[in-house]
């Protein structure tokens, strides 16, 4: 056992490649044999990943899902921010400039609309749950934007750690739901071309959610959605503790 642990820990990234590869193989097999391709193999793999993260988190009590298990530590590196961003940028290879220009304006509008709409929806829910402190309402609203905007806004405004944790949880729920829900609703919201993918990325904003959701819908759309989504968190961190907070404070 110790022998296995030593080898696995020393070669953690390689273990991760092998485990993820096996997961994808099984997922594509299931997608092919049992759903006849109706559900994308990557959607199944991502769902399996989330399930594993849930049980990993339950088992270890850590924050990094399955990556907190000693034997699967490499998943943390493989699925970490650096590799994610590297692979996302690589998907832009071969993207046509003309496609970007076509949706440029709608893309920019969607980023603003996305931050503002998610913020106010989250803020309304906070009010519905009985919160009346503008700092708490703003922080929870910001969390409904992304799980980064929430804590950044909360700490800028001096929100309690309890509220900040709540805002992170709201952002996580959003991100996970986008991962799972996107392939299901794609048909109904016209998510099948570069333009709508850019609008989608801007509206959703959660880079992880958009990245996984589009991968499970149509990998060709990934670069377009990811491009706008990566501006969302920055804009949210800009608007959250400033204009949006002032608006909430004026209303409450």
């Amino acid at each position: 056992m110790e022998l296995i642990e030593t080898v696995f820990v020393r070669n953690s990234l390689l273990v991760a490649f092998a485990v993820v590869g096996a997961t994808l193989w099984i997922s594509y097999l299931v997608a092919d044999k049992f759903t006849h391709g109706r559900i994308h193999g990557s959607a199944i793999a991502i769902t399996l990943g989330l399930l594993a993260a849930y049980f990993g988190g339950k088992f270890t009590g850590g924050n990094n899902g399955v990556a907190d298990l000693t034997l699967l530590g490499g998943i943390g590196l493989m699925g970490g921010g650096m590799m994610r961003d590297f692979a996302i940028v690589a998907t832009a290879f071969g993207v046509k400039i003309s496609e970007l220009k076509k949706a440029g304006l709608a893309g920019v509008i969607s980023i603003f609309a996305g931050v503002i709409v998610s913020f106010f929806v989250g803020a309304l829910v906070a009010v519905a749950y009985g919160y009346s402190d503008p700092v708490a309402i703003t922080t929870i609203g910001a969390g409904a934007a992304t799980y980064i905007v929430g804590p950044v806004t909360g700490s800028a405004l001096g929100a309690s750690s309890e509220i900040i944790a709540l805002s992170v949880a709201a952002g996580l729920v959003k991100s996970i739901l986008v991962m799972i829900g996107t392939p299901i609703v794609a048909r109904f919201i016209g998510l099948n071309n570069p333009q709508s993918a850019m609008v989608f990325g801007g509206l959703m904003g959660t880079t992880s959610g958009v990245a996984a959701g589009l991968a499970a819908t149509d990998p060709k759309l990934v670069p377009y959605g990811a491009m706008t989504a990566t501006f969302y968190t920055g804009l949210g961190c800009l608007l959250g503790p400033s204009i949006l907070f002032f608006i909430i404070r004026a209303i409450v």
Partner: protein
Amino acid sequence: MVVYGVALLSACLVVGMLIGEALGVLLQVEANVGGVGIAMLFLVIASNSARFKSLIEGASGRGIEFWSAMYIPIVVAMAARQNVVAAFEGGMLAIVAGVAAVIVSFALVPLLSKIGDKNSDENTNTNNEVDA
């Protein structure tokens, strides 16, 4: 050489991230503002430009394509390291806020995509006029 493509990709990301961080400092927000998006723009420009031909064609291009193809496995690993437990244990408020934000945002996709359509139509019209 394969590594040329990988190097170009890495350089795009690092420079994009630097600009994103600098924007964050300029705007006084504690976040990277669009670093990845800017990096993607660099790669799009490079891959559409003749000057970078030697870095994007043949073996060099395969170095970039490899990482592009590794995207889904990396996303699966990313899903497996999310704090799913915290999302579920945040209570009903967190779940309702997250779900409501997603539903409203989903619903806005077709509306805002129409702006894109109209915009592109106008563009083609003006282009036609210029051509004429």
